[in-house]
């Protein structure tokens, strides 16, 4: 029996459309974040290599790469679902999806899956390009994959919430500039939180992005600031809460159906 039948074709079609939507403008949605991440890599490794040593046997450039991959993956998963929703709300073409028999759950799954795909493609691209520059260990592949999927799912879900809530592009940009950016930059992309003063170490532990990045990095080096299981638990819990919130919004028709 084929996986695509009368019941599943609707959600599959929406997923496919959402993937094609960013794929058509891949220069902007994939190439551009990859270039940005490589610029960070170039500059930070040039300035800090040899001056900052986070783990004894890990060069700073190698330490930086998983952080940059995760940062770009998270930002792009968020950008995918949020910008698609805001754009189709502003343009009005969201109506084409709202008129269909798709359930709110199918709606959610299609947007989420497309966001995960975009996040993973961007993350994988940066990883592959980075391999040209440096040897990167890969101690626990399963953790790498787990946190990549959890992270893009979490931000994809957050993007759905932001996309439904925002009526205009600038509102969505506010999410990006005042929530996503500070949380990523203060999460240990560029440093280990052990290098911070104690008060900032404590504050960082309230940042869910810290757990995604630390768990992801653990997969590469086999060491991190905290146990990957703790990160896994925190990230999963946070994901579950956001999924519940976005499903609640979608089910009630908040800002989509009057």
């Amino acid at each position, binding site marked *: 029996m084929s996986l*695509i039948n*009368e*019941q599943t*074709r*609707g959600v*599959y*079609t*929406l997923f*496919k*459309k959402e993937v*094609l*939507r960013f794929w*058509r*403008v891949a220069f902007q949605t994939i190439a551009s974040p990859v270039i940005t991440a490589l610029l960070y890599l170039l500059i930070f490794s040039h300035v800090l290599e040899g001056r900052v040593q986070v783990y004894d046997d890990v060069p700073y450039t190698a330490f930086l790469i998983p952080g940059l991959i995760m940062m770009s993956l998270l930002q792009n998963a968020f950008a995918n679902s949020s910008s698609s929703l805001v754009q*189709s709300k502003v*343009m*009005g*073409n969201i*109506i*084409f*999806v*709202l*008129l*269909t*028999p*798709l*359930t709110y759950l199918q709606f959610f799954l299609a947007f989420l899956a497309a966001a995960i795909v975009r996040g993973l493609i961007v993350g994988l691209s940066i990883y592959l390009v980075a391999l040209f520059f440096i040897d990167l260990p890969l101690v626990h592949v399963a953790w790498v994959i787990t946190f990549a999927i959890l992270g893009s799912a979490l931000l994809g879900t957050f993007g759905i919430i932001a996309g439904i809530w925002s009526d205009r592009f600038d509102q969505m940009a506010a999410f990006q500039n005042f929530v996503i950016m500070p949380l990523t930059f203060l999460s240990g992309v560029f440093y280990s939180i052990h290098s911070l003063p104690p008060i900032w170490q404590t504050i960082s532990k309230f940042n869910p992005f810290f757990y995604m990045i630390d768990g992801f990095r653990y997969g590469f080096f086999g060491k991190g600031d905290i146990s990957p299981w703790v990160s896994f638990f925190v990230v999963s819990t946070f994901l579950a809460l956001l999924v519940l919130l976005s499903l609640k919004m979608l089910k009630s*028709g908040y800002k989509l*159906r*009057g």
Partner: protein
Amino acid sequence: MTVPAIKIENIQKQFGSLQALAGIDLTVQQGEFFGLLGPNGAGKSTLINILAGLLRPTAGNAAIMGHDVVTDYQAARQALGVVPQELVFDPFFNVREMLRFQAGYFGRGKANDAWVDEIIESLGLTDKAHTNMRKLSGGMKRRALIAQALAHKPPVIVLDEPTAGVDVELRQLMWAFIRKLNKEGHTIILTTHYLEEAEELCSRVAMMKQGKIVALDTTANLLSKFAAKNLCITLKSGVLPESLRPLLKKVEGATFTLALTELNQVEFALSELRKAHAEIDDMQLIEADLEDVFLSLVGGA
């Protein structure tokens, strides 16, 4: 007895303190070409959005082909195709892609592609099938919108002011196509500002005003009931006898238009003119149109 295409029972919709729909009852049978008329703000679009599931009713029930639009919304939406009023489009895809996606959302796969091609051809979109939606002219976008509503081959089609800002040529092509669909058994519900359009196309008409239906009848009955004929007379004196004042509808210089509810009023008008020794320069008997019905129901100006 077949299920009605649309059955609306006491639908009410409240937006805060504004009552947009004040209890609408309406049944449209399968195969009808039905017109929904009314001034802006009468509640036509609200009613359509409730049928489409874009709005939830405050009270009452609505069903499409027997499927409740709230409790059985999936089956209801399968049966319904809506052409929205606004020229909305997805800027990332071309016409054929959009139509296939649209059919796909409804669970239609490859087998439906022939139908998609048929719509593209019937609406004169063949040349534009591979053109990005963004690059289409307004008229072409309008055609693509109609095509999108039809992509899943719904038995009931709602067109919300489809001819607003559409040129004559396209309007005719559109109506020929919609008429053909109606002949093939599709139920058509049309909202429009163009009364002559409704008069020409719709076999039955509902007129709405302030969230209520103020008239619901066959187009022919409405025409005969509310204003059978217009008598247009031009008088040399330019003065209409006082006794004819109650019938007066419009004055243009010395030309008076009298609204007659019955044909035998012509005799009355003529005898009054004779009594007043009014000399007639010109006289015409004009069939009333829906505009007269509309104005007399919805209240002038």
